[in-house]
């Protein structure tokens, strides 16, 4: 097991290097000069531009800029944003917010998705199953920004149950509404996934054996059916968690969540290379870690899966 983990961690190194290189290259190749854009509609003097380029190393060739960036990473320095804030500080401030939001969203979609999926699977073809299908089809087909705007208007502005946007400091109660909105997207998927998995497991021999042994339904459903149905769902949840962690740009924008998605979007628009690359690097790291955790979780859920040395 330890050997497996070590191997996976070592594999992550070239992946990380490769992705940062690609991202750096793409940001570098992004047309337009961010320094010129700093001046808005006014045309800056070339001498001032020259000075600023030097300050941000924009006057160096691509490879030199990239190596300087790599060097920075190793000493824990991701550079500074245009507003003079160290990027590490921005990272330290935005990721916890997005983590809270993602965790909350995962919590909601897990409870609702697995719960509804389980019942629908156990009552295949019945009224509950068909209505769950209808609801998930609707949720899948409505774009998330529509759901977000409608939820904001109805629950926050008209009913006043929540704050319309997330207040400073992003307290947990303000994050409930955006988390619910985010959860609706994956709820449908999780629900369908759980349902089909439950149906499949219910038909397995070991379930029938358990039933004929005289075990109560109350024991069969959670221990035998649900646990064995969860493997695809866990994979999905983990991947979804990764997606949520790298920022739900649209939803964060609508609810003004000071998280990763909103900050990254703004950095891209402003052409702040250090910020963009640092964020993406951390995102890649999160993805790698989450994927490793998923693989390890398989072994816990299904004893048949074992990782050889």
């Amino acid at each position: 097991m330890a050997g497996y983990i070590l191997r996976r961690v070592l594999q992550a190194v070239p992946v990380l290097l490769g992705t940062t290189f690609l991202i750096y290259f793409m940001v570098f190749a992004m047309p337009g000069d961010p320094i010129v854009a700093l001046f808005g509609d006014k045309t800056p003097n070339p001498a001032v531009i020259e000075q600023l380029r030097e300050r941000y190393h924009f006057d160096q060739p691509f490879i030199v800029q990239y190596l300087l960036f790599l060097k920075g990473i190793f000493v824990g320095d991701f550079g500074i944003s245009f507003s003079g804030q160290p990027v590490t500080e921005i990272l330290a401030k935005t990721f916890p917010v997005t983590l809270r939001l993602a965790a909350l969203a995962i919590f909601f979609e897990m409870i609702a998705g697995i719960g509804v999926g389980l019942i629908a699977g156990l009552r295949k073809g019945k009224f509950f199953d068909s209505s769950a299908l209808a609801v998930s089809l609707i949720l899948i087909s409505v774009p998330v920004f529509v759901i977000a705007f409608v939820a904001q208007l109805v629950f926050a502005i008209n009913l006043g149950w929540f704050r319309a946007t997330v207040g400073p400091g992003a307290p947990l109660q303000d994050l409930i509404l955006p988390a619910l909105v985010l959860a609706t997207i994956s709820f449908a998927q999780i629900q369908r996934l759980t349902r089909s998995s439950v149906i499949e497991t219910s038909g397995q021999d070991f379930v029938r054996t358990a039933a004929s042994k005289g075990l109560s339904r109350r024991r069969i459903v959670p221990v035998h059916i649900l646990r064995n149905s969860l493997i695809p769902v866990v994979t999905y949840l983990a991947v979804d968690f990764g997606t949520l962690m790298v920022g739900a740009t649209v939803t964060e924008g609508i609810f003004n969540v000071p998280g990763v998605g909103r900050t990254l979007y703004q950095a891209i628009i402003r052409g702040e290379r250090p910020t963009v690359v640092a964020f993406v690097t951390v995102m890649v790291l999160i993805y790698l870690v989450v994927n490793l955790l998923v693989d390890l979780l398989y072994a816990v859920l299904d004893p048949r899966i074992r990782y050889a040395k």
Partner: protein
Amino acid sequence: MRTKRFGVAAIALAAAGALILSGCSTGGGGDEAPKGDATAIITTDGTEPQNPLIPTNTNEVGGGKILDEIFAGLVYYDAKGAPVNDMAESIESDDATTYTIKVKADQKFTNGEPVTAESFVKAWNYGAALDNAQLSSYFFESIKGFSYDVNVPELEGLKVVDDLTFTVELNQPESDFPLRLGYSAFYPLPEAAWEDIAAFGENPIGNGPYKLAEEGAWEHNEKISLVKNDDYTGGRKPANGGLDIIFYATQEAAYADLQGGNLDVLTAIPSGALGTYEDEFGDRSVNQAAAVFQSFTIPARLPHFSGEEGNLRRQAISMAINRDEITDVIFSGTRTPAHDFTSPVIDGYSEDLEGSEVLDYNPDEAKKLWAEADAIAPWDGTFKIAYNADGGHQGWVDAVSNSIKNVLGIDASGDPYPTFAEARTKITDRSIQTAFRTGWQADYPALYNFLGPLYGTGAGSNDGDYSNPEFDQLLSDGLAETDLDAANKNFQDAQVILFKDLPAIPLWYATVNGAWSETVENVEFGWNSVPLYNEVTKTAAE
């Protein structure tokens, strides 16, 4: 996602008033006791400052809005844009070239340091020096000794006479120089700034009506908390306890917060709500003219757009645009069709200058002029207007193109660039081969600010490389003129030339759109689209 990318340009408070400022009273009018709670904190919308909070390095709305509240310059601008002495005791000049500035005694920064002549001179020198690469360095261009080629640590034209007096010598007469002094680039800085300017930019120490609530009050990407500065004695004394400026990524989110009761004053309405916000908020909303001029520029280097043929085509295109209909349909009346090259809020504005009929929709005349141009050299190709697609410009660019296409019977279309940076880079390095969107938000309230930097030969923001000696002459005559009305006459005459040459096609002026909640009163928007926050009162929270 912000729809007003022109806002990135420098903003400034403005004035339209008298030129000789020494006579200005402290302003403020009668001191009626404010009805609201003097300790209430007003919440309002803003955007994360793009740069550290250093006056000479801030040229966009997000940071400018904060600086204007925590610093006090020599003058400030009242609601109408007239300059009122703030830190200045007097600003005097006989020849519009050398100014003697006296600073009021006993003014303090919030760390206790006195505001002296030195506070201004050092800050200006810092802003002007090439090595400091300050974004607003061009504001010091006209001071003697300024250079873009070598680093000048101390400008020759700035001399400290005594503790509270200094003189400014300009390269040439510029009678609107005093009008500029309310702009943030001209704010004073305390000695504390020079110990560590980077740290200062994070926790600035000012001398204005407000100050940062505490060390670290600027919570990046979230908000900045300002509280009343009791040491401030100028005319902008706050009637409230402080300001919380919340940073929003989108105007939609800010609007939702206003509707949801979490925001007191909103300074921009999202495009989706422009048609309805006045019904929803009634007399708690505003739609008034702003000092923002929008246009598109046709560089003379494009084929068919130089000389006699070019002038005919420019005039034909201008008359082919139905500005009334477009401002009505696309902007729900939140733009006002242009009648000149400046803005209605500026002193000296006139809507019927000679030649301004070229801005009226006149399809028959447009067709006629276009045909005359075709007689000189036949038209070929497509007329394109470049714009940045990240700024919400597509709607009007398409409408303008269609208007031109329908009237002149030529191919016309928009030419989108994905980002603002890309469009500006192409415009700046002159590699753009089409007409392009241009906009100007005044730095200070003077006609010259809309003309000199944009159309003067070789001027900084003359993106179309327009040059007309007659025009240049009228501008410098106007600057040398110490009488404001006479100066404005020159600037108006200069515009008559622009109407013939049309280096840029004027489209419309932007308006300020804002709204506020039931809990606040006395919300008045200044000429620069920012509310006069110090006057806002809030009833005590329940």
